[in-house]
């Protein structure tokens, strides 16, 4: 009954009718002690994410105690007035919950993931951790030693080594962004339980904190649950993340920093400079520009370095938008023998973003991607709560997420060019190369890309002072 049927259908199908999507509505309530509660009901999502967020993070700590905030967050779950660390873990596990505390540049967060019927006991534990941590001397010392060992591991891993060398090359010594948010060997060695405790006392103030709860909240009175557990929590007024974070560049000249690791079989490339703050008027134009340059699979960088040249498994670029200007970086790991041409191709693409309008197709693809992927990004409660946390921490308006898609749709080719000219500056970039420099240095010098600083990692460099922790 059939004539020879073609193997496949030649014509590309047309899209169906898009189903409307809106970022979930949320509600704010303030408790008597100033703690703000944000609830977002997500029907059909029984795994609840509850996050207690304190604006202020590693950017707000004294330079000589860098790493104190991250260590403080890690140590929060090491014991409370009622529970030892092990008891706390066991209690959490019995609830089928996970609770963790962490700090980044701009915020410190204690969050719980828990099935909705066990939300109340999980919130008990979050409240206990936030308001009555004990910071046992011995456990803080252990976590500090683990961080020091992690720094050794970071130095041996080419990718982590490149990130570390990159921010050191990008930022002035006056900027905290010059280091890892978890601190440096020199500063972490100083950290003690007393310092961590003082850091907490200085900051933890319910009046400046927000509890965000997302998931299927049918039949759950979040405000009441929160009030029972948090309303009685009083603390000395903390200091806000008021200070302006210094994000000064180390230099306005293009320069190269080469870390020679003779055994490496790839070169880790980082090219960039201080990027942008989160609170900028051209955020949406920047997002589209960044997707075209180095965000999409078919971005200019990946198309050129991977799909045309085969230099790398992947090339990209992006902005780390913080309260102050976090780094802009183009990144790729390339075969050693193509290091110099890869650097040159990246520089060409960065310059090209600034010198001409993007194609209409490039603009359309990037906008459509950012608009279309928006609902996919917020499938789970954790993602929704995380986005609301960003609003709280960065001081964005409540309609920021609702406005996202129309704002992206409105970005023009001219806006993209303006964003590139404002935020991508290859002539001011630090170029950091971590790899077998013996193999590419002559070609690099001949390329004349800028002044070169050479360093060499010796295998012994990473060997630690031979100190094992003592059991306490």
């Amino acid at each position, binding site marked *: 009954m059939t004539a020879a049927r073609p*193997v496949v259908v030649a014509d590309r199908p047309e899209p169906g009718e898009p189903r409307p999507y809106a970022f979930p509505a949320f509600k704010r309530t303030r408790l008597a002690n100033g703690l703000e509660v944000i609830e977002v009901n997500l029907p059909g999502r029984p795994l609840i994410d509850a996050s207690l967020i304190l604006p202020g993070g590693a950017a707000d700590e004294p330079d000589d105690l860098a790493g104190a905030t991250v260590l403080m967050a890690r140590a929060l779950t090491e014991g409370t007035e009622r529970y030892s660390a092990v008891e706390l873990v066991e209690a959490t596990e019995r609830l089928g919950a996970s609770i963790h505390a962490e700090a980044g540049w701009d915020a410190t967060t204690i969050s719980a*993931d828990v099935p909705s019927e066990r939300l109340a006991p999980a919130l008990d534990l979050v409240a206990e951790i936030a308001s009555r941590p004990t910071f046992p001397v011995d456990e803080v010392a252990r976590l500090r030693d683990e961080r020091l060992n992690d720094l050794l591991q970071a130095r041996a891993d080419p990718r982590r080594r490149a990130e570390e060398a990159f921010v050191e090359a990008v930022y002035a010594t006056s900027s905290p962004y010059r280091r890892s948010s978890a601190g440096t060997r020199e500063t972490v060695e100083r950290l003690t339980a007393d310092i961590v405790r003082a850091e907490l006392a200085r900051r933890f103030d319910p009046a400046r904190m927000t509890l965000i709860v997302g998931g299927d909240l049918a039949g759950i009175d979040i405000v009441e649950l929160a009030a029972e557990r948090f309303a009685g929590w009083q603390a000395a007024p903390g200091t806000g993340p008021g200070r302006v974070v210094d994000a000064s560049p180390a230099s306005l000249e293009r320069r190269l920093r080469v870390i020679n690791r003779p055994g490496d079989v*790839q070169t880790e490339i980082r090219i960039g400079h201080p990027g942008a703050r989160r609170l900028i008027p051209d955020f949406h134009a920047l997002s589209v520009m960044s997707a075209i340059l180095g965000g999409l699979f078919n971005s200019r960088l990946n198309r050129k370095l991977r799909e*045309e040249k085969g230099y790398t498994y992947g090339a990209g670029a992006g902005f780390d938008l913080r309260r102050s200007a976090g780094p802009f970086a183009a990144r790729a*790991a390339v075969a050693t023998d193509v290091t110099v041409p890869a650097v040159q191709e990246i520089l060409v693409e960065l310059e090209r973003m600034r010198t001409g309008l993007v194609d209409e197709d490039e603009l359309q693809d990037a906008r459509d*991607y950012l608009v279309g992927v928006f609902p996919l990004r917020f499938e789970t409660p954790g993602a929704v709560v995380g986005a609301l946390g960003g609003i709280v921490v960065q001081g964005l308006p409540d309609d920021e997420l609702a406005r996202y898609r129309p704002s992206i749709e409105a970005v023009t080719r001219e806006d993209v060019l303006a964003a590139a000219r404002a935020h991508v500056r290859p002539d001011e970039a630090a170029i950091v190369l971590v790899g077998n420099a013996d193999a590419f240095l002559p070609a690099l010098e001949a390329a004349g890309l800028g002044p070169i600083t050479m360093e060499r990692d010796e295998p012994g460099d*990473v060997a630690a002072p031979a100190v094992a*922790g003592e059991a306490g």
Partner: protein
Amino acid sequence: MPGPTVRFTDQRLANGLRLIIAEDHLAPVVAVNIWYGVGSKHEVPGKTGFAHLFEHVMFQGSAHVAKAEHIGLIQSVGGTMNGTTWLDRTNYFETVPSHQLELALWLEADRMGTLPDALSQENLDNQRDVVKNEKRWSYDNRPYGSWNERTLAGVFPPEHPYHHTAIGSMEDLDAASLEDVRSFFKMHYAPNNAVLSIVGDVDPIAVQGWVERYFGGIPANPALPIDLGDLSLPLSLGGERRETVADRIPLPRIYFAFRAPAYGDRRLDALDLAGQILAGGKGSRLHRRLVRDERIAQDVALFSLGLIGGASVTAGWVTARPGVDLARLEAGYWEELQRIAGEAPSEDELARAKALTEADELEALQGVAERADRLSMYATLFDDPDLINRMLPRYLAVTRDEIRDACAAVFRDDNRLVLTYLPAEQAAGDAEAAA
């Protein structure tokens, strides 16, 4: 708490394509996931890494799709996508806004039906370079990067198809030809070797019509399935194996690996729970003893890689703190494995491990992409997609004694591979001292 239930339909097209559909209208998104029953275990000597290289070629265009256009189209509608290759299978997946489902189906069908039409030496050479850089980036240029390869080589005999990794060797990648691509496609990439799972905001009747329209004309390969012969192996390496590896690392690390029962065997479920009890987080035995109490370890791990072809791998590691006596570290880790092999875990430990497993399962199944991947997996490996609903009850039914017995069967002296990674300068010093 009852586990989540995934309701789905399960049918086959005339050409053998298995189609599984699960509706979920919570968000306007849909996941499309195809598992092909071909993995690195189907590679022949001299062609290691080929299944994975082939997976890359699948993104280089087909009769009606240009090079890199597949990814470009999916991203331009706001979708995400990828493909992965493993010992037992290869998978390809997209998550897209639900009104773009037809596009994703059309793209998958075009490459399943017509990949060789767009094949070129230039594209193959390009992706060969990309894959070689992937190997450098994922393994060769990483601290401890060779453990994966050494573990498979040590746990499986040379004639067994799990002896080599999915990434393969540089020499074999160099040797891959266009003819290899064509014959691999012809043999393995047929609808009767594929499971297509679609999960999300869809109308199943419309989906069935589209799948028939786009995939129904692709011919089956009557030569499938391929019989790899009897892959079964004794649950023993036949003696301890030890290897010391010099690497550019600051902290020594000891890797352990064991031959374990094949995926699907209840004993592997018990070993998964044992992994949770021994190394699953801060409350686990190994973490508590070696990291927290004795403070001789920086981190610990223990987990199983489930494989269907005769045996799986249970593997783990412990990273030394600086200056620690490695013999003591190894002994401490080993004692904990022996302890659980000799004495069943406590009720409370097992209850916590089950609660965590339940939470992990609940979390994993939240998103449509993971649900689609699991449906494809259980259908491909076990001909039983409903395992998506029965795995959790299976874990919850494991007893204390079953955990002890499974550990006793696997954590044995004559079934262990021990890889000791040492900083190069320390390894050189040790060699000198021994000479």
